[in-house]
């Protein structure tokens, strides 16, 4: 890697995050493009990654504003749903996804609770 000169700390982390996001964008786009049996030119990929990063930045601002407006310091699921309010289809999909998240969360502790009592008697014996 090239030594970064004259870059501030936040610029460095910004670049690092940009690259990390770019990897995810490339992986996602590549998979999507293969469904159409097409190819995507590197320029477009770079533009798309840049676009996604900017979108993520805007999302961060929106979501923080919503949380603060609700009098919270912590961003919740509802804030993200609100950020996507422009597109009803997206909201519906995200809502379904959120529901699956909370469901899987509800299931996990149950499993742990079930396992824990079984282990304890074993340990005692």
């Amino acid at each position, binding site marked *: 890697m090239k030594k970064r000169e004259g870059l501030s700390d*936040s610029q460095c*982390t*910004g670049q690092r*995050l940009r690259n*990390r*996001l770019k*990897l*995810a*964008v490339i*992986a*996602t*786009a590549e*998979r*999507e*493009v293969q469904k*159409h*049996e*097409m*190819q*995507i*030119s590197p*320029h*477009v990929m770079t*533009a*798309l990654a840049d*676009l*996604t*990063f900017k*979108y*993520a*930045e805007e*999302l*961060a*601002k929106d*979501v*923080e504003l919503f*949380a*603060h407006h609700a009098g919270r*310091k*912590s*961003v*919740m*699921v509802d*804030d*993200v*749903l609100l*950020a*996507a309010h*422009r*597109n009803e289809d*997206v909201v519906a*999909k*995200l809502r379904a*996804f*959120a529901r699956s*998240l*909370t469901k899987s*969360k509800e299931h996990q502790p149950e499993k742990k609770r079930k396992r824990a009592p079984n282990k304890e008697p074993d340990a005692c014996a």
Partner: protein
Amino acid sequence: MERTTTMFQPDTVHEIFKLVWGQLASKAERAKDDLDDTPEGEVVAAAGATKKIRSTSANANALKLSCELLHLFVCEAVQRVAIIAEGEGLSTIEGTHLERILPQLLLDF
């Protein structure tokens, strides 16, 4: 559409969020400092400092949901762009195709 798992990682998204929030906070702080370089000085500054640390945090599910949103954004972009390229009978997606779909895409998200 079948469910495909996201390639976006909540950690990455969280760090991006934190970076933006940090920048916003420092910007707000600077604006505030410019506004009040008043005498009451240190007491106010100290009180403000504790308040300013109220950095925003994010719920784990909210981050996963953000990842999903970004995933949808990229998928939608690629699908739209692929349709345009297909319409032109090309098998490679070029910049002009992205330009064509960009305005509507940004309106939709």
